[in-house]
């Protein structure tokens, strides 16, 4: 049987139009959304992060996003990659 474990993981870059997403397993959900669009898309980003976590079955996650002006679909894709990378085999 394969044992899975959650660990810290990252996806994306700090290039323009991209974002760097870091996920760290935690007791509860927390979002730290930084970057140029912090105030302009704060609500939107919060919603998409929560929706993605729910959809992928992760609850306790500390999510940090350093946004360099990425589209919503890019943030979502980077988060999905980070979450998948967070799951490792022991």
């Amino acid at each position, binding site marked *: 049987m394969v044992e899975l474990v959650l660990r810290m993981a990252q996806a994306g870059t700090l290039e323009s139009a991209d974002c760097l997403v870091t996920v760290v397993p935690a007791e509860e959900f927390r979002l730290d959304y930084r970057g140029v669009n912090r*105030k302009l898309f704060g*609500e939107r980003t919060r919603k998409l992060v929560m929706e993605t976590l729910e959809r992928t079955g992760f609850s306790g996650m500390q999510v940090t996003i350093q946004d360099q002006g990425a589209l919503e679909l890019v943030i979502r894709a980077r988060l999905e990659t980070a979450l998948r990378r967070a799951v490792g085999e022991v």
Partner: protein
Amino acid sequence: MNFVKNALGRLVPVGVDGVGAFSPYEGAFARVLKGAPWPAAYPVRKPEPPSRSKVAPSLKTAIERSGLENGMTISFHHHLRNGDKVIPLVLETLLQMGFRDLTFAPSSIPDSHDCVADYVRKGLIRRIWTSGARGEVGRMISRGEMEETVIIRSHGGRARAIEEGSIVIDVAFLAAPACDALGNSAGCSGKSACGSLGYAITDARFARHVIAVTDNLVEYPLHPHISVPQHLVNQVVVVDSLGDPAKIASGAARITRNPLDLKVAENAYRLLAASGILAPGCSFQVGAGGASLAVAAFVRDHLKEKGIQGGFGLGGISGYMAQMLEEGLFRALFDVQSFDSAVTGSMVKNRAHMEIDPSWYANPMNQGCLVHNLDVVILAALEVDTDFNVNVMTGNDGVLRGASGGHSDTAAGAKMAIVVAPSFRGGVPTIKDRVQTLVTPGETVDAIVTERGICINPNRADLWEAAKKANLPLKEITDLKKEVERFTGVPEPVEMDMDRVVAVVEYRDGTLIDSIYRVKE
């Protein structure tokens, strides 16, 4: 503060404390066409007895002799751009001498001068009247740190304000890359050469006291070119260096290689070509870089290919335009401000490359400014709205990060004013329902060109016809807005403190076109 709605529906104050009453904006040419006599106020100056030298022993002495007192107004030009050391030097000296509450009224504030914010905080500067504010200065103003309302003016507007006495400059500190002992000054030679000294000319004419600051005292008389003649200069101060030559005269502006900017520029060029405006004798103005400058490259190829000679280039002149003059693609250049090193040589070599002052350039209230003869201007934008209004002052976060410059002047005057911008930047759409800060009114903007389509102002049915005939990628601005929002989303509105006006935007005719509010943390 009491407010009134202007003709564009923007709330603007009826007056600014310590400055006076203001009228609300009524239309791009409303005041000009009213034809009411417009005052010109020459300063009261004492005659200078005959002398052979106006060189003061030090900057400090010159200031003492200038009669400058607390609460007075000082001015500078911004021709030394980000290499300027004169503004910080003078401000520091004034601070050391114990001055307070001065009105700082330069033609603009170079990006590099974050230090101005410190001088505000230390009490040296109480008011700022400028064309632009960026960096720490912009942030400071947007945070509401200044008690007095900042006044933003266009280049033409500042010239008008000076000439009518709305700005009374008590002491003008004019950096002069070449200067003789009696104050004859020029900008196109010397180790700190900056090209045109246009803004200095108007300040020198109307300031109560003029101090030329130079790092290159030449043998009398300065020749062959004099921008500011000796009879307007009171004193001369010699310093080691006016600034960093590498940043004053940066390398010749190159055409961008960014494919997105090139696409925008290409679309703008196609519109110009379809409109038929690129005919012999046409006149042209472009920006310093990016898509705006790249349009010049397309136009240059067009003129060469068709063997057309343009009338004049105007600006804001970069090396690229100087090269076009050299190639005979223009008959002349009118230069109010030189953008790069390549221009300095052109001014010296070519008599058709002429220096102008900002009133000649863009003051709408004189007997004919140059922007009113302009055929084409290509302008940038931070954001635009569906009424074709343009914001070049505040960013997506509501913070001051731009300059009015010649934007509203050239848009009003030019036969064809084209705003070029990417349809979205940093994930945020460029086209909004309503711009945060209205600097250039939509009625003066003929087209907004993006990489995803060309939007023609409904008031230009003729242009729309020509563009349609040429099969250009036309889009309704509301459609393009929606198209972009489909993948960017609609940004949440920035929270502004509507009770606190930190700056007002004066239109070129002296009326108020918009207010800038404090940004909530």
